[in-house]
């Protein structure tokens, strides 16, 4: 039973980790809590739904050739990531950048982000209605049992993808020039301009990375739990944000560790206690963690110069 929950927790934590990543990337560069991020995850899931339905030929406009499920799945992931990045960049371009250029305080940008999230949520609700949509099954689910532990190929796919994404992002941020620029901006955004680093380009790149990871999380999420609703991003988004902070916001490792911690806490709490207590205990544990280490697990307390 323990290992069964362990696997479930890994999968559940993977979603949180992928979403928390978007929070952490944007925060690391802009010091902005991008509260619209949870809803970008939702938008990603919906875009994936429409693309997958289109490729499956559910609409009147059909492709001249048929594809098998796995191909559609891969194409859906790629297109969804591209389109969702466009949504994320558009929000940055329309809402955040003018405020940044004006030099408005951080809190104003945070509120704008919150409002963007509401617009996405309720715009979706208004356009598509409140009825839930079910995601078509693209990958044939096969169930394996090894030593009493059952798992599906989807579960393995989610976990493996998350680990690959983690390694990829760590490489991007640590090894490439763009990653170096991202870290430099979070360190000193004024000096960075003097060094000839194009601030806006790096910020757009950050949003592309964050949004596409949210899109990836969205596709994987609806593949595992094939129900779409407009408010699916809100709750997960807030929780992923908390996970990012517990891990130490601004640190990629932190987002992953925080996401998995939250996943594990939620799954094991639900396994031991009645599931209605899940949020209560999960948040209490996270608060305890934060009060023990106020900057998060990987966060470094920055000394402020006077």
């Amino acid at each position, binding site marked *: 039973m323990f290992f069964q929950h362990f696997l479930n927790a890994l999968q559940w934590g993977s979603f949180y980790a992928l979403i928390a990543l978007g929070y952490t990337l944007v*925060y690391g560069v802009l010091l902005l*809590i991008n509260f619209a991020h949870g809803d970008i995850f939702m938008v990603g899931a919906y875009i994936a739904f429409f693309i997958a339905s289109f490729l499956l030929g559910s609409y009147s406009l059909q492709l001249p050739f048929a594809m098998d499920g796995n191909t559609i799945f891969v194409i859906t992931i790629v297109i969804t990531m591209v389109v969702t990045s466009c949504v994320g960049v558009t929000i940055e371009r329309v*809402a955040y950048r*003018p*405020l940044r250029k*004006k030099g*408005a*305080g951080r*809190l*104003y940008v*945070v*509120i*704008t982000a*919150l*409002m*963007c999230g*509401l*617009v996405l*949520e*309720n*715009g979706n*609700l*208004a356009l598509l209605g409140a009825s839930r949509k079910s995601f078509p099954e693209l990958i044939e689910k096969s169930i394996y049992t090894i030593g009493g532990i059952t798992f599906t190929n989807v579960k393995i796919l989610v976990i493996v993808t998350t680990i690959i994404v983690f390694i990829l992002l760590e490489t991007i941020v640590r090894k490439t020039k763009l990653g170096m620029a991202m870290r430099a901006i979070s360190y000193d955004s004024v000096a960075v301009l003097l060094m000839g680093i194009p601030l806006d380009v790096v910020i757009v790149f950050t949003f592309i990375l964050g949004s596409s990871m949210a899109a990836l999380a969205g596709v994987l999420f609806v593949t595992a739990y094939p129900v779409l609703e407009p408010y699916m991003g*809100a709750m997960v988004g*807030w929780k992923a*944000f*908390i996970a990012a*902070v517990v891990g130490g*916001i601004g640190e990629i490792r932190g987002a992953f560790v925080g996401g998995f911690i939250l996943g594990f806490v939620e799954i094991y709490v639900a396994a031991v206690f009645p599931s*209605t*207590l899940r*949020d*209560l205990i999960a*948040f*209490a544990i*996270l*608060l305890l963690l*934060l*009060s023990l280490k*106020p*900057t*998060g697990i990987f966060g470094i307390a920055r000394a*402020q110069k*006077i």
Partner: protein
Amino acid sequence: MKRYLSTILYTLLSIVVIAAARFGLINPYEQIVIMFIGINIILCSSLNLINGYMGEFSCGHAGFMAVGAYVTSILNIWFFTSSPVFGGPLFSPGSAIFIFPLTLIAGGAAAALAGMLVAIPSVRTRGDYLAIITLAVNYIVKSSIENIQVIGGARGFMGMGKVVDSMTSAINLPWVMIWIFVFTATCIWILNHFVNSTYGKGIIAVRDDEIAAEIMSVNTNRMKMVAFTLSSGLAGIAGGLFAHVLGYINPGSFTIMKSTEIMVMVYLGGMGSLSGSVLSAVSFTLLMEILRPLQVYKWVLIPLLLIILMLYRPEGIMGNRELTDVFPKLRRFFPSREL
């Protein structure tokens, strides 16, 4: 005479509105809107103390509101009605008129206590980490209420209508509305004096530069504690009133959405401006009611409006100023305690 003009005007206004409600000149729907305006003024101005004056980012105000709402409702149900959980009424139902405000204050005190507990970790953390703590507290409060079956759990808690009925049957007046008027005025009065006191100056100093404030011998920890306690206490009172306007509360009323709504009002009005908070609470509540026929589109339109407001006037309606700064002539009527 001029010094008290604002007080007199407010009293007259409340008497006129209450009389109109008593003699059926305004219909129940309009009465509820007026009462919500009062509640929103309390919520918005109390959150402004933390988010505006102190410059922190508290996004769990609805949690404190929930504490106040539940404590007040439970006390009232226990005292004045016979319920299967608490047994028969403790006091005669008619005495609710006098005891009701006390239960409201008790609810406020409970919420203040919760706020103080939140303020303890806030001594060590700031900014985004504090945002998380308040967010988590909001979830924890909501989730704990959902898990206490005695008070209805997720189904909600009702019966406050009976308390209101017993008050009106003793003396036929719209009592809840009266207390909303009284507590709104008290809340603004307290906050106005608080902000202009040494404590208020200390809180503004913490916002501007915490380290400099500390060097200037401002006890920053104490400032945070006091601000959190006062703000959440007032939110608790607003919650108690909210519960008695509706007669029914459930944990779903006190989610992050509610907190967001209060935050929207604060930023609409302007951080660090009491009159801005009042203005925005009034206009926001009315706007919500006017846009009601739009249904779902309302919640697309309002955030869009706010985004546009942020782009063109990020400081909100009033910014950091008070009404008396914009129209200096008003200063004759409002006793200014500055300088």
